[in-house]
């Protein structure tokens, strides 16, 4: 299969219509260059989406349809996206078109059900029924092997991890994909057909001997065993079919769950935000309640400064009064003494009689004292002094509650809680916005179903194992009874015996042929991968690669031993070697589209791989950025093999991406 052109409309970062002519020029390699985050993976995804209705984001997660539609198109209310592939297969021109349009009334189309889907398929200009789209694609490039044709650096990681870690399900998946690409399932069917023929002969042998008294018992026993075997096989087939159905369902759920992984995370975030909000509201209620209780006595603290002022003022007045009263008392004592001296006409100090000048002086002093006393009496208010004492006593009884700092702390806490509540509500709103239109119960149901199916599958696989063991047993018994009947010398039995023997030989031959074919193919893979590996690796001491039953490859060192620990770069080279080998040996030929495959490789390895690429497949499309490849230096050795070069550019930070051809080599 060769992709002639890819036409994108509003796909990913590509606004409007963009056409990539990949098949013109007649050379195997097309190079598409762009910076990181510049739309290279979107080109790979567009082809994947057109073929299989899926696109992968980071960590190989399925992307939602709404996330694929160009944002500018959505803003302009033209949420319509399409990808058209024109391919050529064995001389036939096939056009595949897949298109989605947002349903009317859906404000933010995101999920598959938010869109109307349309496909069309034409072969040499003749349109087929849309229902045949997937069948045709499966015939062109089966989904099960597409990983070997459409891959990026992350998918290389997937292969390495699966094969190296050897997990049962993961390894089986890759092994089945590899065997599919090599055509082994068809060979295995031949063996099954021979087994069926042999069973038929066995049944005829049994029928031929039922009338023979000597062999009737054996014939009856054989019939019974065969009936049991048939039942066991039916049971086993039923269980295997159930396993397949469950595995398919599981894959569907897994894909849905993976697609909705973000949804699950959002559901988790929503749940957490709601719990946070509940907790905040409970704490806020408690604080409000406490604040209301404190408000009962807060008035005392509000009043306290005013009372303090009053108290201070009154204390100052009291102090003044105290001083005045003391002074008055002192003056009165002096007055009393002077009056006594004048009355007795004696000086109280010396005890002698008073002369007139002395008497006059004392009278003058007394007069001054009386004036002063009159003045002081106005302010030395003893009654007021007593009253003040009473007032101050009363004021001191009105004590503050001392709860101000508690109220302050609570109000600070409430302010913080208010902000936290606001943020929690924002989180809830954001999560609810993301989850709008998504049936959360559906996601939870998928989760539940996945767990249930996994549990059932464990049981079913155990049943298959047991049934297979019983089949081995019953087949041995059938073999024993058949052998008895084959000893019957009547002509019918002898004829059937010869047929039986022939078929046994054929069965054995087929089994050995399939085993040999599998081994040969595995050896072919090893040989081709080794060839490619030795061309790609820069370490010329390596002998090659060794393959195991899971098609995992190990590097063989010069001393013949496996290299146990490999660098990330070596892993990538080995993975590319396997992919190259599979492409060479595949029963289906397809284009190889590689997205940034050189991330972990040094310049020498890159150069080797680039030189190899034109021989890897009939068409190789490279999506690269100039950080991983020096396009001038590294591509120069293969420039004659490059059909066209495209560059993805952006005119400015807010402008759309453009992919334009910069070179065509016809």
């Amino acid at each position, binding site marked *: 299969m060769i992709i002639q052109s890819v036409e994108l409309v509003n796909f990913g970062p590509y606004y409007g219509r963009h056409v990539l002519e990949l098949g013109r020029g007649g050379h195997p390699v097309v190079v598409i260059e762009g910076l990181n985050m510049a739309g290279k993976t979107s080109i790979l995804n567009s082809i994947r989406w057109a073929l299989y209705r899926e696109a992968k984001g980071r960590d190989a997660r399925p992307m939602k349809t709404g996330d694929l539609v160009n944002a500018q198109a959505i803003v302009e209310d033209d949420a319509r996206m399409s990808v058209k592939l024109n391919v050529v297969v064995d001389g036939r021109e096939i056009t595949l078109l897949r298109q989605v349009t947002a349903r009317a009334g859906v404000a933010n189309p995101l999920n598959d059900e938010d869109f109307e889907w349309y496909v069309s398929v034409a072969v040499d200009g003749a349109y087929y029924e849309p229902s045949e789209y997937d069948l045709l694609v499966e015939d062109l490039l089966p989904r099960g092997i597409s990983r070997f044709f459409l891959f990026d650096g992350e998918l290389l990681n997937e292969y390495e991890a699966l094969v190296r870690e050897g997990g049962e399900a993961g390894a089986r998946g890759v092994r089945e994909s590899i065997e599919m690409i090599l055509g082994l399932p068809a060979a295995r069917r031949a063996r099954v057909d021979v087994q069926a023929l042999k069973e038929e002969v066995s049944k005829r042998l049994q029928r031929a001997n039922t009338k023979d008294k000597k062999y009737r018992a054996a014939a009856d026993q054989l019939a019974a065993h065969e009936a049991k075997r048939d039942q066991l096989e039916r049971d086993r087939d039923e269980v295997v079919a159930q396993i397949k159905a469950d595995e398919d369902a599981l894959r569907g759920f897994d894909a849905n769950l993976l697609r909705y992984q973000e949804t699950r995370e959002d559901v988790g975030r929503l749940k957490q935000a709601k719990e946070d909000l509940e907790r905040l509201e409970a704490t806020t209620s408690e604080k409000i309640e406490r604040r*209301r209780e404190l408000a009962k006595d*807060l008035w005392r*603290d*509000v009043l306290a400064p*005013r*009372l303090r*002022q009053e108290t201070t003022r009154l204390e100052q007045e009291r102090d003044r009064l105290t001083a005045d009263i003391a002074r008055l008392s002192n003056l009165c004592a002096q007055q009393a003494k002077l009056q006594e001296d004048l009355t007795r006409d004696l000086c109280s100090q010396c005890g002698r009689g008073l002369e007139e000048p002395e008497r006059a002086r004392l009278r003058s002093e007394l007069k001054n004292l009386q004036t002063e006393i009159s003045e002081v009496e106005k302010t030395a208010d003893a009654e007021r002094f007593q009253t003040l004492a009473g007032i101050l006593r*009363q004021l001191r009884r009105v004590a503050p509650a001392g709860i*101000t700092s508690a109220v302050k702390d609570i109000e600070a806490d409430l302010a913080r809680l208010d902000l936290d509540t606001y943020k929690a509500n924002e989180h809830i709103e954001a999560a609810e916005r993301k989850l709008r239109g998504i049936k959360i119960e559906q996601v939870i149901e998928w989760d539940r179903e996945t767990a249930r199916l996994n549990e059932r599958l464990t049981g079913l696989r155990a049943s298959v194992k047991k049934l297979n063991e019983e089949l081995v047993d019953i087949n041995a018994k059938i073999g024993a009874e058949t052998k008895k009947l084959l000893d019957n010398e009547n002509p019918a039995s002898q004829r059937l015996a010869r047929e039986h023997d022939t078929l046994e030989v054929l069965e054995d031959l087929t089994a050995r042929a399939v085993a040999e074919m599998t081994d040969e193919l595995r050896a072919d893979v090893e040989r081709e991968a080794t060839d490619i590996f030795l061309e790609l690796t820069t370490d010329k001491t390596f002998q090659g690669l060794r393959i195991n039953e899971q098609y995992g490859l190990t590097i063989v060192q010069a001393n013949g031993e496996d290299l146990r620990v490999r660098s990330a770069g070596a892993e990538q080279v080995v993975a590319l070697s396997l992919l190259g080998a599979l492409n060479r040996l595949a029963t289906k030929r397809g284009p190889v589209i590689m997205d940034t495959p050189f991330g972990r490789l040094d310049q020498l390895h890159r150069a080797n791989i680039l030189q190899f690429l034109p021989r890897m497949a009939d068409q190789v499309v490279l999506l690269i950025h100039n950080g991983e490849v020096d396009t001038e230096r590294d591509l120069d050795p293969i420039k004659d093999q490059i059909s066209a070069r495209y560059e993805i550019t952006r005119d400015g930070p807010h402008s759309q991406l453009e992919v334009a051809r910069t070179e065509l080599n016809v």
Partner: protein
Amino acid sequence: MSDSAAPDIHTGEEVVDGAEGREDILQVRGSAALRTFLDDLRAAKHIIELVDGYRLCIATACAFQRAPDTTRTYRGRQTMFARDTLDTGDQAIRTAIAEIYPDVARMPYRAAEDLAEQGAEIIKGFMVGDNLKFMDIVERVERAAQEDETS
């Protein structure tokens, strides 16, 4: 009307008439506006009972150096509490008003009514919608008191 008289808190004399020839009151009242304000405070969960808010209003007016006017009238005034409900235990409200405002020492509860009305208007000024921070009032009062002390 001896049952409406209250003893002078300093001398213990019974006061039969107020200074202006009016008696003090046994039931404190509130205007329609004040009652609505206190209801709103309770609805907004700032106070538990209306009397808590009434006391706060009185204290706020005192703290803001407002002078009571016992002759002022208010629209829609209705009885709200008995004075013993307002002023429990240590009769602190009566004591504070009588000492801070000696002119109305003989009718402290009548003065309390007017102070409550004034205090409500002051507290409204601190509110933003339904939100009220008590600390805004307390800090303002303390700041004013400190400025007075240093001047």
